[in-house]
């Protein structure tokens, strides 16, 4: 997938999730907020990591805000038909990273600093996951540095035809 595909996809995803977060405030729709990014899980990647990323994305997108309850293990298990233990593993890692906090008897809640922590974490991998592939692909296609910078700035719009 090229950088631009990823970019367009991110745009679409964030606008859809924004719409959904706007429409649904009912508690039973809670899981919808988180899973809006994906309807099905990918069997080629550890499931607990995917659960973790779904919650992270929802927090970064602002569909799941500080002090809001995150879907429970059971809700994830029922929605995706996954093993509850697997869902719990993903959620517990987020607790260890101070993204979620457990409130006894009520559930898991988003911490105040969750978004800040996540953004800092994602920034660290942004170069590796997005900039580096972009540079590599640009090199392969002999796109000059100036051209690339212009594109990033949005100065130059490529004619798709």
């Amino acid at each position, binding site marked *: 997938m090229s950088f631009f595909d990823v970019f367009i996809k991110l745009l679409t995803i964030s606008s859809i999730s924004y719409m959904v977060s706007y429409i649904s405030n009912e508690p039973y729709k809670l899981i919808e907020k988180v899973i809006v990014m994906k309807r099905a*899980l*990918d*069997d*080629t*990647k*550890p*499931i*607990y*990591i995917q659960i973790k990323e779904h919650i992270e994305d929802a927090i970064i997108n602002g569909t799941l805000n500080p002090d809001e309850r995150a879907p429970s293990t*059971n809700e994830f*298990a*029922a929605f*995706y*038909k*996954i*093993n*509850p*233990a*697997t869902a719990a*593993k993903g959620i517990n890692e987020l607790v260890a990273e101070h993204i979620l906090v457990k409130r006894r008897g009520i559930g898991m809640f988003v911490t105040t600093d969750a978004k800040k922590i996540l953004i800092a974490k994602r920034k660290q991998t942004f170069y590796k996951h997005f900039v580096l592939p972009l540079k590599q692909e640009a090199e392969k296609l002999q796109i000059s540095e100036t051209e690339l910078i212009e594109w990033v700035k949005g100065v130059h719009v490529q004619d798709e035809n």
Partner: protein
Amino acid sequence: MYKMKIEVDQLTKVYRDKRALDNVSLTLSEPKIYGFLGRNGAGKTTFMEILTGQILATSGTLRVNGEAPFDNQKLTESICLIKEGGNFKKELTIKNVLKLYRVFYPNWDQALANELIEAYGLNVNARIKSLSKGMASALGIIVGLASMAPITMFDEPYIGLDASARKMFYDKMVAVYEKQKRIIIFSTHLIDEVSTLFEEVIIIQNGSIVLQEEADVLREKACAVSGPKADVTAYMTDKNVMQTKEIAGMMTAYVYGDAVMEAAHAAGLAVEGIPIQELMVYLTEEKRGA
């Protein structure tokens, strides 16, 4: 949560001309949903029949909480096996079947059975012989789930069930398991449909255990690595390679092991995960005839 421990030591079963199980040793001690996978004739059913106490092993031992299941009713009350077919006597009505199992299984959940009978639209007065394959399978699923047996096994339980009936089964299985954890051993060929349900996967081939591993660990340890042939070949030297494919100077290697993905990234090769179903295919093809 039910605590049961299954300990299998060098279990072997020989039929006249075939070693159905060959020195199988494994331990299942946690209430988990286990995916028990293998090709036809790999020995899955034989294993489950020994575990249920229906047949005896030729040699080796299988113990559940320290006891052998054969001819041990106290123990078999804790074990339920639902097979592909022929689970119930043909002359009985569904009502009779449910009554029998309710008496046999001490933890039987009648409310759950009623709910499922309703959900699958079964007529309790119908005789087993009059049921379609799908309906008979649905009854097997209902009995297996409602038995609440601390060890419940489903051996390809859904012949004739359509996709939505299977989906309902998965939904119910998760819900029931969530409420009361137990050992569920699930053998199926429709791995893609259920692989996310498995917490642990056991792969059996030609009567031997090829692999027993946590499902999410498998997803990390198996991958397809692609790139120019020379680079992939160099990468492969110290790896466990299940299979390779080549086209136009490019090569894909299906590898399994610790940190295989990191190594591929480091070598600048393209990496893709492998679904559990495909992994099973590669693993059991490789071992064939070996």
